[in-house]
């Protein structure tokens, strides 16, 4: 029996060979280290992120999440539902709260779910893995697992939007959450102080439809990290990670900048600090390689 067990909703981007596959890999490795067992919901579906609205109405979109919750309730009773993807977590938590708050809506959702032979009860807590790490495991315990402190690495904690608003991590402010900074410190690194773009939007899903407008936002985020002397950016969100990492060349071309800064998941950071291998930390998943982490991992 693992020390802690959760019902797990990986989401589309964390599937094998999807854009956040590296998050999945590193998450698996840190959970192993911390003795956390993530039980995947067997037949989960997409949450529609925050972009399904053109086609899907309010109720259909809620039903998507209600289905996942219903499955989790059925398969993993008593376990909190945990997600690693910001959008997945947000959509699921939102659906959970709204359906529990609005009896009529809940009845409607269940009427729809009946078609799939499911029922949403609304008895689960929906949590982000970061919450599990901070609240259930705690900084102290994480610190005890640090074998290779991330010495001399300056890291900009980019929290982004959806892990931060409208729910956020308990006790953190919307405008200046500090949990990533604290985590960086616990892992032996140096957080960038006053990183004032830490909760700015990267464009999210609009990177696909409005790339230029979104890249302008990413440019500011990267610039602020550079101004703060960051060696790399750390983020909890797959969309943030991808948007800050993969478009740097486009941005450089457009704005004449010379960005080349790695953007990593907090799970990758932790994995490296826990002394796990580059592969376990999914460092091979970096398009812009995190050389300083690689150096530590290979020590």
């Amino acid at each position, binding site marked *: 029996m693992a020390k802690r067990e959760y019902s797990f909703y990986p989401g589309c981007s964390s599937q094998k060979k999807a854009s956040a596959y590296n998050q999945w890999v590193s998450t698996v490795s840190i959970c192993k280290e911390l003795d956390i067992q993530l039980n995947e919901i067997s037949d989960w579906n997409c949450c529609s992120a925050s972009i399904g609205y053109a086609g899907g109405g309010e109720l259909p979109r809620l039903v998507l999440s209600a289905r996942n919750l219903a499955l989790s309730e059925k398969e993993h009773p008593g376990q909190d539902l945990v997600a690693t993807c910001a959008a997945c977590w947000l959509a699921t938590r939102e659906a959970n709260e709204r359906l529990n708050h609005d009896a009529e809506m809940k009845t409607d959702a269940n009427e729809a779910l009946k078609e799939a032979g499911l029922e949403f009860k609304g008895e689960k807590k929906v949590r982000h893995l970061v919450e599990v790490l901070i609240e259930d495991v705690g900084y102290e315990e994480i610190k005890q697992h640090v074998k290779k402190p991330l010495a001399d690495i300056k890291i900009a904690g980019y929290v982004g939007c959806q892990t931060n608003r409208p729910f956020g991590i308990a006790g953190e402010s*919307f*405008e*200046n959450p500090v949990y990533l900074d604290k985590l960086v410190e616990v892992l032996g690194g140096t957080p960038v102080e006053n990183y*004032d773009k830490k909760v700015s939007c990267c464009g999210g899903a609009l990177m696909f439809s409005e790339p230029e407008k979104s890249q302008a936002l990413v440019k500011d985020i990267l610039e602020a990290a550079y101004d703060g002397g960051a060696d790399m950016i750390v983020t909890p969100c797959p969309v943030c990670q991808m948007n800050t990492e993969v478009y740097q060349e486009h941005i450089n071309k457009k704005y004449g900048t010379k960005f080349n800064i790695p953007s990593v998941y907090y799970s990758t950071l932790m994995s490296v600090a826990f002394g796990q291998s580059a592969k376990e930390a999914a460092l091979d998943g970096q398009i812009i390689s995190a050389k300083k982490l690689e150096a530590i991992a290979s020590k």
Partner: protein
Amino acid sequence: MTNVVATNQTILVVGGGISGMTAALEAAECGKDVILIEKNPSLGGRVAQLYKYFPKMCFPTCGMEINLRRIKSNRRLRILTLTEVTSVTGDTGNYSVTLKLSPRYVNENCTACGACANAVTAEFDNEYNYGLNKRKSAYLPFAMAYPQRYVIDSRIIGTEEASKAKAACPVNAIDLDMQVQELKITVGAIIWATGWKPYDANKIQPYGYDRIPNVITSVEFERMADPLGPTGGKLLRPSDQKEAKNIAFIQCAGSRDRNYLKHCSRMCCTATLKQTTYIREKYGDEGKANIYYIDIRAIDRFEDLYQKVKQDPTVTFIKSKVASITQDKSTGNPILNGVNTEGYQRYSTPYDLVVLAVGMEPSVDFTQLPINITLNESGFIEFDPKNGGQFAAGCASDALDVNRAVQHATASSLRAIQVINKVAGAEA
């Protein structure tokens, strides 16, 4: 031991700010026995920290002086400072109240000569100036403080500092052995004039009060404008002590906002109008005031002040709730970001200094006290017959300006007298 004579024909007034002083004096000057308690070492409350009053731009110390003179010449009124209520039991016309008296460590021998302050070195944040400067650990809270007696900060008790203060006193006024006392009294009616406190600006995260040095609160600005304040009346930026000339005011900072205070704090609009005149007073045409507002609530004849300020070409009004404040790292200038909703114009404007017109919240959380009283959603005391012989006066009842608070306190005084007269069976 402090001795207090009180009966069920005595009125207890809790809070020695302008409302409490008024309520107490009106009753005492009507021949009633009144006990006025104040948790701080001196009377005066929030108004003692104001530089000027709107709309006349007169000085609160002036009214304080009159009220102090009334207090000094009234034998019906007993004042206890450093005193708080810890419990209330009983009912209309017969309340049993427990008071907690904290030690001042200075007795009535004190002549306010200041020798103790000269002797000590330890300093603490000056509460009177909202922490904008330091004060000694033996101190007179402010120039007009009444009782005009020094205070020894309890944090130095038991240290060498305290002994130094004691040794320096030429009149043997320092008594370091003073202890907390508990006092039980009987009173007929209670007036809660517990007042307000400025909303904690740290909680208004988008405005970065906790992160951007040149973002300050309206109460701090008020101290800054005061020639007797921490900056000698200069409007100095905290980041570099440079004079701030182009200043933005953000209205409803914490008020009318479900994230913070749901209610409108009423006085902030007029207070800001007043504060723009400070800028004019210091710089003439060289200064600039920029007011970001939702509605300018300059009610009744305060409208005159609004019209006057509107005429001033150095004052600009922008209908907008500022979305966020960022900081220009090279200059330290706060940058206001948002949208002027009148005609939709986006702005990102730097200023030398930003003043948050912070809202008012009740200074006492009555839900945390063993006191049975009806509160509204914002924690203000509601007028409710169930409150019996307990009445709110001033800002304990709602966000009020000084004038209205005094008016309300005067009314509360009569309500208490009605209870007392009934107890006394007084037929006119």
